[in-house]
């Protein structure tokens, strides 16, 4: 976007207004995330500038077993289990939904992704009442099941999107050459839709790792996750160890952003090559 050479005065004003708003917008989006990173290396306990000195003392607090490492361990257990279950169930369902026609398909698809459309607090309430009756409140299994519900729509959506560009003749070719359906799936389909499955898995992992509302409803002291510990810390006692954890999580999101960008780039390249 550039201003034409013969721009009027009014156009100049608009042009600079736009620039100023955009500059403010991008600063507003990224500024807070960038600005808190150096505070985590402060040697003092005030969450402000100028820093009295640099140290790693808050990272030392973070690596202590309680509360952060305990919460991290819980978060990882739950997120890994959620990812495995959600990716498996979601990929199977997406594959089934695109493979053939059967009655009620749009309805089923809508139902499978409906957890995305319902405010999380309502899902949390429903899950809490359900778990209370079947004895899953304050268990790891309960938290994992709850997170699968919230994560699985992302897998269904990404895998379905990938399968849209999938050439079913490849499966037919494999089957006509004598491959049983299962090996055709694992040797032909899965490698080709792997970027979509991986993207779905990343989404599922992040959903679980970032989820706090359901955790507040259904988990107990033994299942405290990282976001829940962050929530408690922010509410009760704010100290720079929270900022240290936040910094680690920001680096983690940067890495994930890179992974997803890479996957989508590869996927796009794959598809465009398939089209030609």
């Amino acid at each position, binding site marked *: 976007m550039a201003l034409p050479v013969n721009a009027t005065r*009014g156009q100049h004003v608009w042009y600079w207004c736009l620039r100023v708003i955009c500059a403010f*917008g991008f600063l*507003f989006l990224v500024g807070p995330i960038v600005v808190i990173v150096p505070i985590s290396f402060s040697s003092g306990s005030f969450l402000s500038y100028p820093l009295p000195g640099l140290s790693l003392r808050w990272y030392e607090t973070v690596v202590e077993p309680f509360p952060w490492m305990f919460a991290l361990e819980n978060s990882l257990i739950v997120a890994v289990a959620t990812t495995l279950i959600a990716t498996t169930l979601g990929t199977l369902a997406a594959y089934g939904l695109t493979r053939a026609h059967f009655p009620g398909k749009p309805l089923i698809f809508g139902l499978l992704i409906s957890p995305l459309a319902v405010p999380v607090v309502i899902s949390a*309430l429903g899950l*809490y*009442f359900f778990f209370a009756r079947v004895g899953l409140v304050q268990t790891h299994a309960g938290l994992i099941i709850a997170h699968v519900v919230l994560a699985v729509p992302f897998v269904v959506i990404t895998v379905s999107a990938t399968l849209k560009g999938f050439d079913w003749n490849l499966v037919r070719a494999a089957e006509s050459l004598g491959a049983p359906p299962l090996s055709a799936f694992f040797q032909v389909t899965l490698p080709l839709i792997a970027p979509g499955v991986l993207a779905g898995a990343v989404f599922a992992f992040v959903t679980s790792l970032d989820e706090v509302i359901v955790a507040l409803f259904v988990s107990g002291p033994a299942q405290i996750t990282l*976001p829940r510990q962050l929530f408690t810390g922010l509410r009760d006692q704010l100290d720079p160890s929270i900022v240290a954890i*936040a910094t680690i999580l920001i680096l983690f999101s940067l890495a994930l952003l890179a992974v997803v960008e890479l996957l989508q780039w590869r996927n796009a390249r794959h598809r465009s090559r398939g089209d030609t």
Partner: protein
Amino acid sequence: MTAPAGSNLEVKLRRAQRRRSFTSFLLVAPLLLFILVVFAGPILSLLYFSIDDPKLAEVMPRTAKIVTAWDGAELPGEDAYAAVVEEIRTGYANRTVAAAAMRLNYEISGFRSMVMRTGRKIRRITGPPYRDALIGLDERWGDITYWRAIKASAGPYTTRYLLAAVDLERRWDGSVAKAPPERTIYVEYLQRTFWISFWVLACCILIGYPMAYLIATSGRRTSRILLALVLLPFWTSLLVRTAAWVVLLQNKGIVNDFLLLAGIVDEPLTLIFNRTGVYIAMVHILLPFLVLPLYAVMRNVPPDQLRAAASLGARPVAAFLSVYLPQTLPGLGAGCILVFILSLGFYITPALIGGASDQMLSYLIAEFATRTGNWGMASAIAILLLLSVAALYPVYRGLVRGGTGFRFG
């Protein structure tokens, strides 16, 4: 081709197709079953919990039966008093009466302690007439409003939670009226939820539209970098972003330091635990949800069209309004509804950054469910929130179908 062979092939083909449909459905079945049992069922059960009212009838079945038959016009007869005495006696002995007392307290505050006190002294009542004896223990047992409260709690179903969620109540004679002022807080929460969502959306449009425009019209390289600047917060944990705002907005925080240093203000502004902080943090969290779909649509609007309009003599504002804006409306609409729906359900950010008067419907749901254990009220408010969201959803679907779907990235 002979007819029998053809139909044979057709039958075989149809059978194969049917088998294929069936095996495909089998692949979907595990997840479908899972979602039905763990998600759809429990959400539907909220409807049931919002009218379910079993507590009093469980603990005091005879009383419940008698007051249900009672017309509520005058004090009930001796049999009702006898039932109350007997059932409070047994309920107090085996400690079940507290649940019923809690339920009665929803009707009249103070009823709980009244029942518990009666339970403590119930030993003093040794025989009939129970009416005089009970009024002797606590004269409120002679007040008809308390008996009407028992009638209203007798179950097994009630409309009180659903009515209360919109600040109404059912009178003893069956009429529906506005609830007393101390209980009319829920409509205010609903209005506030919509009000906050509206302003958050307005701010998002004001900042997000120019941003999406800039990303869409910049060169390839710049646009990738700018897009990454939107995606980074999008991928960052909601709690991390909320934490950042808690740190930044404190009285001695970075924003205030900067404002003081720059001489914009003389003393620190209060930016946290109030509405300002909630707006700032919510706009920050929701802005990418507006920018991304908008960008996806704007990317496909040819920039030459604005120049063409200008060359045909349209003034820039007119060209924008009549050429550019209409083509971006599907993306704008989808982004707006997405932001609005998401913000209606916000809980964490207002809870951490807002004050007592900045909490939204979700906060009430969490309070009733986890702190006071009032499942009926929690369910009723959840239904109110769900209806608000559901009303907007068809609009979103229509807009997304009309425009191009958006992909992240």
